[in-house]
């Protein structure tokens, strides 16, 4: 049956309106996973008991990039039945993904407060476990061309210096350390993540950046580190937790204890992380 043209046009826009209405009706609450979760006991032995199987998706903070590559390899070697995939991003971005329902098994955060938020939303299975610490360090280009000596450099208007943005953990800790040292920060840039800050130091575009010790080590010869006195330095504690949204609970729990246990700590230490 031939419909008059105007009616056909109408059906197209009705479709569009229907889509819009449907979306509005759905609501946009942060849908968190059900709070009821099994309490899984973490195993202390590395690979004992029945062989583990499964596929793990691990969300890890960006500063864990190199270290967790080794951890992943070591865990897979010890547990051949388990495949591990690690995804790296800023801790807050990972938090957003988890709360939006991303299917992940483990979350390793660079920030305790970010982990707390995930816990509060009921997305964590059990309790988070601290597994590493990281200290701040001043990064300067190889050869220290500007002759930077300490935290005072970050208040020096004549130097080009960079911090992490206040919104990310490294930026908060950095400003805390500067406050401890009585320095008023005068940065030329607040980089959104620690890696881009490190890049700018490594290329010599800025004279100094306030980063983690592990970052200084990872940059190799391009960057030199200048230590910060312990009494003003800030220690970041990294927590790890299994997530409610994951499927392989046993494997996730094993991974968490691996990381927090001796094997994990050894790997992390080789990258400059401290013990929890």
């Amino acid at each position, binding site marked *: 049956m031939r419909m008059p*043209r105007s009616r*056909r*046009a109408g*059906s*197209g*826009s009705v*479709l*569009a309106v229907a*889509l*819009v209405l449907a*979306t*509005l009706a759905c609501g*946009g609450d942060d849908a968190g996973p059900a709070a009821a979760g099994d309490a899984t006991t973490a195993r202390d032995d590395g690979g004992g008991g029945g062989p583990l199987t499964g596929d793990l998706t691990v969300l890890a903070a960006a500063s864990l990039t190199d270290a967790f590559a080794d951890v992943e390899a070591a865990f897979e070697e010890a547990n051949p039945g388990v495949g591990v995939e690690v995804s790296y991003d*800023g801790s*807050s*971005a990972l938090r*957003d993904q988890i709360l939006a329902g991303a299917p992940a098994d483990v979350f390793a955060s660079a920030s305790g407060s970010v982990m707390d938020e995930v816990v509060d939303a009921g997305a964590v299975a059990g309790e988070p476990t601290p597994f590493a610490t990281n200290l701040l360090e001043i990064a300067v280009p190889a050869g220290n061309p500007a002759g930077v000596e300490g935290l005072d450099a970050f208040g020096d208007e004549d130097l*080009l210096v*960079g911090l992490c*943005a206040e*919104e*990310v953990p490294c930026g908060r800790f950095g400003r805390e350390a500067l406050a401890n040292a009585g320095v008023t920060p005068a*940065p*030329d*840039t*607040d*980089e*959104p993540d620690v890696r*881009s800050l490190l*890049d*700018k130091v490594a*290329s*010599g*575009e*800025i004279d100094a950046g306030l980063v983690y010790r592990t970052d200084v080590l990872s940059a190799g010869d391009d960057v030199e580190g200048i230590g910060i006195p312990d009494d003003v330095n800030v220690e970041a504690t990294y927590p790890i937790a299994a997530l409610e949204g994951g499927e392989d609970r046993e494997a996730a729990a094993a991974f968490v204890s691996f990381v927090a246990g001796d094997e994990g700590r050894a790997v992390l230490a080789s990258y400059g992380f401290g013990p929890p």
Partner: protein
Amino acid sequence: MTARRRVPTARTPWPLLPLAGLGVAFVAVPFVALLQQAPWSDLGRLLTEPLVTDALRISLTSAAAATGVVLVLGIPLAWVLARTRFPGRSVVRALVTLPMVLPPVVGGAALLYAFGRTGLVGGPVYDATGFLLPFSLRGVVVANAFVALPFLVITVESGLRAMDPRYEEAAATLGAGRWTTFRRVTLPMTTPSIVAGALLAWARALGEFGATVTFAGNLQGRTQTMPLAVFLARESDRGAAIALSLVLVAVSLLVLLPLRDRWLGA
């Protein structure tokens, strides 16, 4: 005259309508969802915060300046590509298109290697004069102009190609030199494509993120543009991030809505 006739609307082929409807929905639904998430009660307070006003000021200033740079460099470049023949012309065109296909962060890194303090060109300039592009509004303008240039060049080049070059011949026979012809004949006749290209460039510059943060850095009040502020606000305050996003959308609409068809086309 006779009574007013009803002018029939264009006869649209039937498959186009539902597809067009889908296209509109595709773009409209995310906006609707964004609006739904907005913290309407906090909006007033959020919008007057220095974070927002600084970012808006920097974004608008740098986008406008970048558009100016792009017009000054891009129109002559488009003319050369459209009207002249020289060996390597296709290479030049590919180069000009490059910022459009490069991931913006890569573009920003390249800018740094070129114009940064230790850069190919920037290094010697800095050593000689102390002039620095990164970490300043100038740097934001450069990064914005870099990514926006191809949009203007491509649009204006096609506008020039569409224009009958015999008008320029007519002007020559009337005694107009090449510069006069360009000014009084070519430019006015390609105005629609220039306007369209400038708008695209401005919009691209306004939304630019990766190249800007990589090249110019991020500092509230000096180099932090709106997209940067949105990105960082997401870390701590989702409501603020959405509010900032809505401001960007509103500003863009303010510029796009008053556009008349005739400036863009006929």
